[in-house]
């Protein structure tokens, strides 16, 4: 049974902080943004979290959806910054979009790839016939300790995908998915810790590059494809450099990865990153276009996907919600002090 995307939505908070502003405060090299290819990053407002971001993305998806909300048999929200340690984010999304209550649910966590894992789980439920449709979401308001290198990239955003198998409704068929997972502790946050720790350069070669390369090669071997078969390619983007390096290593060209590359403009949205890239591609996709996607989560694993845009995209109501590019164009820049306040980085004393 073919499985694929019936609808999608995305949300990126409007606030931005520029890399130079962070470097100014800490006395870091002003070129650090250029070196990472992250020139600014999104900042969630004081009343935004993974629940609100997931709700916004889910609402967009349902506004455009040809499939009714009552058909949703499962909701999975993948994030590493769920607002609650105990209590699902998914139930908030469920209530906001008026879904259920006869559905199954769990929150997912696998660093930056919880969203792609949610999609894979949803594919299984749809293909097995257990669910008519599944809502899979990846969203984060990721954390970076003050002055840590992560502060330049850890940002916020998310995307939602309604998965189903109705041939008349699938706008992008997912032909194959392949994963590569090992116990590789390149990045972690323990219970009760406010900020994550990471293994610096260890997060590169043995972690991101190895896993993304292996999952990607496995996917293309399974699918019998080569990089030139794809119109678009999107990779997890912890910064602007890694996805470009891995794309080139695999043999993709700039025209293929340019559309999905958002990190230079919004930073690393973690569980939202590769999915927002996919949304950016789908916003302008045409029937017959083939898309390569590979998410990555520290710890570590990579999930690769092979998608083809169907003819249904022509009558899919993309205009029912604002396109991602429209959101990304409408921003408010904040300074470090405002950013610190919004992100709860200030230690509040007294009774104030």
């Amino acid at each position, binding site marked *: 049974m073919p499985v694929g995307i019936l609808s999608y939505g995305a949300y990126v908070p409007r606030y931005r902080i520029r890399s130079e502003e962070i470097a100014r405060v800490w006395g870091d*090299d002003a*070129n*650090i943004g250029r*070196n990472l290819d992250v020139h600014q990053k999104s900042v969630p407002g004081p009343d935004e979290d993974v629940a609100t971001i997931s709700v916004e993305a889910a609402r967009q998806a349902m506004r455009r959806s040809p499939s009714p909300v009552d058909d949703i048999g499962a909701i999975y929200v993948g994030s590493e910054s769920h607002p609650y340690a105990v209590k699902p984010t998914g139930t908030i999304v469920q209530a906001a979009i008026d879904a259920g209550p006869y559905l199954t649910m769990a929150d997912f966590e696998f660093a930056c790839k919880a969203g792609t894992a949610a999609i894979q789980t949803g594919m299984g439920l749809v293909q097995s016939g257990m669910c008519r449709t599944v809502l899979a979401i990846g969203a984060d308001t990721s954390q970076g300790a003050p002055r840590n290198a992560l502060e330049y990239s850890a940002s916020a955003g998310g995307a939602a995908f309604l998965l189903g198998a109705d041939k008349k409704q699938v706008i992008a068929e997912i032909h194959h998915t392949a994963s590569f997972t090992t116990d590789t502790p390149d990045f972690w946050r323990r219970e009760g810790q406010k900020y994550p720790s990471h293994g*610096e*350069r*260890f997060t590169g*070669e*043995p972690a991101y590059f190895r896993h993304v390369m292996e999952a990607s090669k496995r996917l293309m071997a399974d699918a019998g494809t080569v990089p030139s078969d794809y119109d678009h390619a999107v990779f997890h983007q912890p910064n602007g450099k890694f996805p470009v390096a891995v794309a080139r290593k695999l043999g993709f060209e700039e025209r293929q990865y340019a559309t999905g590359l958002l990190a230079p403009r919004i930073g690393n949205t973690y569980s939202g990153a590769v999915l927002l890239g996919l949304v950016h591609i789908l916003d302008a996709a045409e029937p017959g276009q083939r898309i390569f996607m590979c998410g990555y989560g520290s710890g570590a694993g990579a999930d690769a996907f092979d998608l083809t845009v169907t003819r249904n995209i022509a009558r899919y109501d993309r205009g029912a919600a604002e396109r991602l590019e429209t959101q990304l164009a409408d921003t408010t820049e904040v300074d470090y002090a405002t950013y610190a306040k919004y992100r709860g980085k200030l230690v509040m004393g007294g009774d104030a």
Partner: protein
Amino acid sequence: MERGQGPRKRPDAYVIGVGHTAFGEAWEKSYRQLMTEAGLAAIQDAGIQGDEIDEVFVGTMSTGKLVGQEHVAPLLLDGAGLADLHIPATRVEASGASGGLAFRQAVQAIRAGGADIVVVGGLEKMTDVSDADAQAIASSGIDQEWEHFFGANDAALHALVAKRHMAEYGTTREQLAAVAVKNHAHGANNPLAQFRRAITPDKVLRAPMVAEPFTVFDCAPVSDGAACLVLASSGVVGSYRKDAVKVSGSGQASDALALHSRATTTTWRSTAEAARRAYTEAGISVADIRLAEVHDAYTINEILAIEDLGFVKKGEGGPATLEGRTGFDGDIVVNPSGGLKARGHPAGATGIAQVCEVVWQLRGEAKGRQVKDARIGVTHNTGGTGATAVVHVLEGGF
């Protein structure tokens, strides 16, 4: 000494075996594995059996802080399965000069007549800690009380030396960069080097700043790696490899630990004195030297080294480098291996790796980077900001 025969001639030390792991980020290997890998390679290269080893030395800067393990010397034997032989094993430490000093201890052990076969290793596993911790640990080699405590670290002090050299001798930023450019070009031909890519002067100048005037490309990297040598005395060397390399000169010298306690920072007198002792012992002059492996932890170090080793006049290190006089077309090829800058700098392994490179060069085995007509090579290894310097003269063709 046998009764009635007068003083016996002091034995000489020869290098008969080398082992050298790839330098870089050895994420998949522990320090034990690295040490064993280099040790077994050296033993195999020398063609010796474990029970022939009389003594072992290991140079390492800070295994205690870097991997939590002190008392590493017996491990070299243990890892090679030779613990049952109960061979004496000693660790030697002198910050970045730990390897060079361990080598000198091995040479001295043979010269003292107490050992015929000595194995000497050097190692460091530096990427198991954060970059910040690695920098702090590397700064253990400067004066903790009077330098580090007040905010100076290893990079900052070397930067001060560079600024002073620029002020006194007109050394330029481009001349410093030329050291990194040359050594990266050399490293590109060394299969064991951490960095095997040529770089441009512009790349050095535009890289992120570390400490004025250094960018990251002026600084040797944080590395993992091990290297090992087998030495034989003149009494037994004839039974082993025909292409043994003679250690004809060994010099070591020290200086005040803190830079501010020295009359000058732009001449490292420990280097000059160690070189004088080594050259004298070997009976050579600078004109005889065809290649040198020098301690370029920062680009300024190589400029100081070639001046203080007497290769060029004081103050001419910068122009000489920029003009290519220390490259493959120059008078003395300096750091044909890529040096600390490109080969990598696993602190304790560096001094041993320098000897490995010179041995390969003198044996004519330095594929792709062979210095023509190499007969005499020099190694130069320093600790901290030069409070320890050790220089060796090696000769091939015996």
